[in-house]
């Protein structure tokens, strides 16, 4: 705003905001790319990789993320500590059961630039498995981001009116029973 004094304008431009994302029924990759963009500060026109300009991002309901395809069974997260015999491979389903925030955490870690600022950006990412958020984080939140994927409606969520207005595509023969 042009009515601000110079110091107030400077303060407002470089302020660090807190974003909230609801990850219910969302693909974790899309959530992670939104998070990485905002943690780096790439959504601001004043971006520069050296100026520490990223914002905080809070992701809730990470327990309820939805993978497309058969990725819960096919996607494998591998790790090796360097010691012999410590090669661990976990499917996404097993990983999620062990730690509901791990999938999004690893996805965001892989999407951030591979330099020393990555660790500070990960410290600014806050993941919560359910929609219970601590009070001090709730007080800091400034904006909620829209969900990337449109959640499809179940058949039970359609009203009887909508079901009636949808036309029948085919007429069953008169003597056919058992629908």
């Amino acid at each position, binding site marked *: 705003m042009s009515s601000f004094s110079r110091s107030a304008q400077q303060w407002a431009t470089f302020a660090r905001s807190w974003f909230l994302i609801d990850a219910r029924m969302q693909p974790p990759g899309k959530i992670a790319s939104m998070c990485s963009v905002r943690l780096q500060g790439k959504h601001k026109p004043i971006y520069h990789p050296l100026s520490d300009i990223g914002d905080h991002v809070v992701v809730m309901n990470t327990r309820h993320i939805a*993978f*497309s*395809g058969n990725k819960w069974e096919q996607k494998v997260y591998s790790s090796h500590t360097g010691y012999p015999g410590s090669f661990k491979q976990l*499917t996404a389903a097993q990983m999620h059961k062990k730690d509901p925030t791990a999938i999004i955490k690893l996805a965001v870690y892989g999407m951030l630039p591979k330099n020393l600022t990555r660790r500070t950006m990960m410290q600014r990412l806050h993941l919560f498995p359910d929609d219970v958020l601590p009070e001090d984080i709730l007080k800091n939140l400034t904006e909620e981001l829209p969900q990337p994927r449109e959640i499809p409606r179940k058949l039970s969520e*359609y009203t009887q009116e909508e079901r009636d207005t949808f036309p*029948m595509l085919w007429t069953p023969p008169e003597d056919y029973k058992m629908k």
Partner: protein
Amino acid sequence: MAARCVMQSARTVLRSVQSDLSNKGLFQSILGFSQFSFLGSVPCRGLRHVVEKKEGKTTVIEGEIEPTSERPQPPNPTAACPIYRWNLQNKYNYTDVLLLSQFIRSDGGMLPRRITGLCAQEHNKIAICVQMAHRAGLLPDHRPPLPEGYVPKPKPNPPLNRYLTRYSVTSVKPILKTGLKWCKKRMSVGHPALKNNVTYSPKPLYTKH
């Protein structure tokens, strides 16, 4: 129109109050009226209205099949397959549950092609979409009936959410070695039968993630 027929039958019943069968007729017409209160929700057999004919000492109470009327006409009535009749080819997806629910039984299985009149390719596509909708949990009421006294296994709470699953959940193996970029083992999403679907964005549909 159905209500009018029921009212007419009710009027004929009220005129012949003296006969013993009048109570039965009244009960049947009341029954008929209660059935028609959910008109158009489950059109499995032809809708019938009760008609009472009296010839001397015999009263004939009949359920006459009503000709179905007031139906919206399809834009292409000459085609053989219902999807082509309504110009829905390449336009439906696993999320269009209202469309898919017209071709499934109450326990979730597909209706036979000779009954629905679908052509082979569209029947296959609808079967694939129904499978994907079941796996995404969009058809919660179309479950197979469980035998009596069956105790289901304790399932993980909350269940894993998924969508566009091509293969059955128990049949898929984890990809332990994905390979290098030029020979990567991709994870399949969606189904190639739906690759001709209309996309309203410039990005193409990716089936291999």
